[in-house]
C-alpha cells in the first residue's frame, strides 16, 4: 500500500493543478457574470464614469498643453490658415510628420498612442482644440480617444471627451473580481487539501478517484452549459458589439459594457406606453411577453390534448379487441412514412375553409392526431400486464376507470415524455405557425415567429434574440425539472412483473 504513496501524491498534485485551472476559470467567469448583471442594472453604458480619472486628466492636459503650444509656436503668425475650423492640424504632411516625430516621446508612451492628423483640429481663434489619440484600449479594443481642449486662463484644459471612449466600470472592477476569484480558488483548494489530509492513507486512492470524477464531470458541465452562458452574456452586450471577442482570451465572453437595453427592447418597456388609438395599443402589446403567453397556451394545450388522445387510442390498440386492429395500426404507422411538409398546404387550405386561419386553434388543430404518440404509448402499454385490468374489472371498475386508475398512472413516465416532446415541438414549430398566423393581428403571433421578427434581411439583432432566448428556455427548463421527478416516481410505479 505504501509503495503507491508517492504515485498518489503525484496524482494528487496533478489533480490539484486541474482543480486550480477549472475553479479559477469557473469562479472567475461566474463572478464576472454576477458583476456584469449588477453593473448592467446600476450603470447604463452612457453613464459609465468617464475616462480619465483626475490624475490622468491632469497628465493629459500637461502633454496636450505642451503639444498645442509647440504647434502654435511653429507657425509664424500664431494662427495660420491651417487652423481654419474645418481644417485638420496637419495640412502640410511634411510639417506634421516632423512635428509628430519630435513629440513622439511625450505622446506616444511606447508607441501605443499617436495623434490622428485627420481628426485633430484647432479652432481659428486658437483657443479651442481637439486632439484625437489613437491608442490601444486597456482591454481588447483599438480605437480613437478624442479629447476636446480649451485654453482657459492661459492653460489647456480638457473640455470634453467623445462618448464611447472610456474605461468602463467593469474595467475598474476587474482587480476586485480577480482578487475575489483568487480567494474563491484558495478556499476550494484549502477545502480539498483539508479533506485530503483528513482522509486516512488507505482511503486516499478512493479520494483521488472521486476528485478525478468531479473534475471530469465539471468539464462535462462546462461543455454543456457554455452555450447557455454565452447566450446570457451576449444578451447583455450592446447592439453592434455582440461579435467582438477578447483577443487575449476568446473564452472571456462577459460583456465589458453591459446593458439591459436588449431585455427592455424585447419586452418593449424601453418606451412609455402610448394611450389612445387601437394601432398604438396593438403596437404596445405586440411584444415578447405576448408572443410568450401565446406560445405557452398553444404548446400546453397541444401537448395536453395530444397526450390525452394518444393515450386513449393507444389503450384501445394495446388492450382492446377490435376487428382489423393490427391492419389499422399498420396503416396508421404507414402515414408516418410521409413527410409532414407534404400535408402542409392541404392542411392550411382546410384550416382556411374552416375559417380558423389566424386563430390559436389553427396553430395546433392539424397536429392533434399524433401517430407517433399512439405508437410510443402503445409500445409501453403492451408491457403493462393485462391481469391488472382484469383484477380492476373484477373489482367493478368501468372502462374509463380502468383507463384512468390503472393505465394512466402506470404509463405516466411515457405520457410525460410524450407531453414534453409535443410541448417542445409546438414551442419551436416555426413554419406551420408562420403560415397560419394572421399578421394583421400581431397579437396572435407566437414565440418562434416573433423571434424571427428580430432577424432582419442582412443583420440580426443578436443581443435581442439572445435576451428573448433567455426567457424562452424557462418553460422548457421548468418542465424538465418537474417531469424529472415524476419520471422517477412513474418508473417505480410501473415496476410490476407478470
Amino acid at each position, binding site marked *: 500500500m505504501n509503495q503507491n504513496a508517492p504515485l498518489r501524491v503525484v496524482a494528487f498534485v496533478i489533480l490539484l493543478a486541474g482543480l486550480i485551472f477549472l475553479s479559477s476559470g469557473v469562479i472567475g467567469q461566474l463572478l464576472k457574470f454576477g458583476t456584469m448583471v449588477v453593473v448592467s442594472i446600476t450603470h447604463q453604458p452612457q453613464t459609465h464614469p468617464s475616462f480619465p480619472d483626475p490624475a490622468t486628466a491632469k497628465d493629459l492636459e500637461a502633454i496636450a498643453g505642451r503639444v498645442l503650444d509647440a504647434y502654435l509656436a511653429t507657425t509664424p503668425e500664431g494662427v495660420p490658415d491651417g487652423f481654419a475650423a474645418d481644417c485638420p492640424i496637419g495640412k502640410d504632411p511634411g510639417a506634421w510628420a516632423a512635428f509628430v516625430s519630435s513629440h513622439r516621446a511625450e505622446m506616444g508612451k511606447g508607441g501605443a498612442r499617436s495623434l490622428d492628423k485627420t481628426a485633430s483640429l484647432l479652432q481659428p481663434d486658437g483657443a479651442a482644440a481637439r486632439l484625437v489619440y489613437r491608442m490601444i484600449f486597456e482591454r481588447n479594443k483599438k*480605437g480613437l480617444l478624442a479629447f476636446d481642449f480649451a485654453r482657459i486662463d492661459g492653460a489647456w484644459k480638457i473640455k470634453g471627451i467623445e462618448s464611447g471612449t472610456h474605461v468602463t466600470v467593469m474595467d475598474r472592477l476587474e482587480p476586485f473580481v480577480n482578487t475575489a476569484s483568487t480567494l474563491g480558488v484558495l478556499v476550494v483548494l484549502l477545502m480539498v487539501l483539508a479533506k485530503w489530509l483528513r482522509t486516512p492513507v488507505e482511503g486516499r486512492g478512493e479520494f483521488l478517484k472521486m476528485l478525478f470524477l468531479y473534475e471530469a464531470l465539471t468539464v462535462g458541465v462546462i461543455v454543456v452549459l457554455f452555450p447557455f452562458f454565452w447566450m446570457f452574456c451576449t444578451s447583455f452586450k450592446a*447592439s*453592434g458589439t455582440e461579435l467582438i471577442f477578447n*483577443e487575449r482570451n476568446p473564452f472571456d465572453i462577459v460583456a465589458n459594457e453591459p446593458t439591459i437595453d436588449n431585455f427592455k427592447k424585447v419586452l418593449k418597456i424601453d418606451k412609455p406606453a402610448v394611450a389612445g388609438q387601437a*394601432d398604438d395599443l396593438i403596437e404596445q402589446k405586440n411584444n415578447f411577453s405576448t408572443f410568450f403567453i401565446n406560445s405557452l397556451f398553444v404548446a400546453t394545450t397541444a401537448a395536453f390534448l395530444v397526450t390525452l388522445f394518444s393515450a386513449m387510442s393507444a389503450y384501445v390498440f394495446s388492450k382492446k379487441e377490435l376487428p382489423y386492429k393490427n391492419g389499422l395500426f399498420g396503416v396508421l404507422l404507414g402515414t408516418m412514412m410521409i413527410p409532414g411538409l407534404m400535408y402542409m398546404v392541404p392542411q392550411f387550405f382546410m384550416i*382556411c375553409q374552416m375559417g380558423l386561419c389566424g386563430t390559436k386553434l389553427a396553430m395546433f388543430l392539424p397536429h392533434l392526431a399524433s401517430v407517433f404518440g399512439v405508437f410510443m404509448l402503445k409500445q409501453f402499454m403492451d408491457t403493462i400486464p393485462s391481469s391488472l385490468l382484469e383484477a380492476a374489472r373484477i373489482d367493478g371498475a368501468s372502462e374509463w376507470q380502468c383507463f384512468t386508475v390503472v393505465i394512466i398512472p402506470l404509463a405516466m413516465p411515457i405520457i410525460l415524455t410524450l407531453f414534453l416532446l409535443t410541448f417542445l415541438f409546438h414551442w419551436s414549430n416555426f413554419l406551420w405557425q408562420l*403560415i397560419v398566423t394572421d399578421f394583421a393581428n400581431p397579437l396572435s403571433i407566437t414565440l418562434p415567429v416573433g423571434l424571427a421578427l428580430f432577424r432582419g434581411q442582412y*443583420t440580426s439583432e443578436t443581443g435581442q434574440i439572445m435576451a428573448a432566448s433567455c426567457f424562452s428556455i424557462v418553460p422548457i427548463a421548468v418542465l424538465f425539472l*418537474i417531469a424529472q421527478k415524476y419520471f422517477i416516481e412513474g418508473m417505480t410505479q410501473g415496476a410490476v412483473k407478470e
Partner: protein
Amino acid sequence: MQRNPLLIAFAVFYVLLAVLTWSQDVTRTPDGRTVLTFWHTYGDEETAMLKEIIAEWEKLPANAAWTIRPIRLPFDGHKPKIRTALTVGLGPDMARVDWSFVCELARRNACVDLGTLGFDKIKDQYVTGPLQTNFIDGKYQGIPEQTNCVALFYNKTMFRDAGLDPDQPPKTWDEFIEMGKKLTNAEKGIYAFGMDNTVWWSLPFFNGFGARLISEDGKKCLLASPEAVKAMELKASLFATHKIEAGAWRAGGTPPEQGFQNQKYAMIFTGPWNLPRFSASKLEFGIGLIPAGPNGTSSNVGGNNAVIFKAGKHHQACYDFLTYFTSAPVQAKWCMKLNQIPVNKGAYDLVQFEDKNLNVFLEQMKSTLGNPVVTSFEMLENVVNPEMETVLTGQKTAADAMRDAVRKVEEKVLTL
C-alpha cells in the same frame, strides 16, 4: 378518487393562461375607407417611417377612398408565407419581397404587369441595377423599392500598421493584390481579405469583368464565357496563389464580418447595413469602391422590390401608392432618415447623408448591373456554389468548373 396535486396545479395554470391569452385581444375599428393590404418585412424604425409616409399619402385628396394597412412579416418567413397565402387566395394586395423572389412570383402568374398601369413611362427614373431585377419575360413585374450593394470596407488602422496610406484603398485588382501582400501576416492569423463564396457575393468579380451569368432571354447560362472564367480565376488566386484571402468562405472559417470586426481581416466586401454595427464597435474603417476589373468597378444588387398581386382588386390604387413611395422626394426623405440608398435616380441629388461613407455606396450603385434573373435564385446558388468551391480548393480549373456549372444550371435551374 384521490386528487392529484399535479393535475390541479395544471388545471389552475391552464385556466389562468387561457384568460391571459384572450385578454390580449384588441380589435381595430374600420373607418369606411377601402383597405389595401401591404405585406412588408421592414424593421421597427422603417415600419414607423412607413406609417408616416402612408399617412401622408392618405391625406392627399386623390386618395381619400383608400387606406393602406401595412402588415409586417419576418423576412426569414416571407416567402413561404406569401406562397401559401396565394395558394388559398388569402394574399395581400401588394407586398415587399426580396428581389430574387419577384421572378418566381411572376412566373407563377401572380404579379400584375406594371406596364399596363403606366410604369413604362416612369421606369427610367429608377436605378438600372435594381430595375433590371424586375424585368421578367419582357415585362416589368415589380418596382424597385429598396436597394443596396456591397463595397470595399477596409480597416484604416491595419492599413497604417502595414505602412499603407489609410486614405487610399485599392482601386484596381492589381493594387488590391499588392496591398494585400503587405497587409497579410498569416502567422498571426491576419489576412488582407475575407470573402464569401456564393453567387451573389461573387457578382462584384463577375460584373467587374463584364461577365453575365444568364442570357437576357433567360434560356442560356453564360458562366463558361471567357470573362466569367477570368473573374473566377482572379477570385481563386486571391486565396490559392497570392494567399491574401483567409479562407473565410470555408466551413468553420471566421465569417468576413466577424473577422473584420475583430481586426483579423483588413478588407471585406459588405453593404451599408453594417455601418451602424462597425461604428458601434469603434473600428476605424473606410469604404472604397470595389476594385476595378477590365470592365471597371461594379457590384451586385441587393434589396427588395414591391409587387402588386393579380388576386387583389385595386391594382391602380396600389400602383399609385408604390410610385408615390418610390418617388424622388419621398425616397430622399426615407433614405436620409434611415441611411439607405435611393432607388429613384432623382433622389440622388436630394439626399445628403450625415455619414459620408454612404456616399461611396451612392457612387457604387451607379455602376451596378442587374443580378441574374432566374425562377429560383436559391437553386442557382445551390448548383453553382459547390462548383466555385472546387476552383478555390484546386480540385478543378476555373474553366472546367464553370463548364460543369453551365450544364447543371441549364438542367436544373433554367428548366424551372
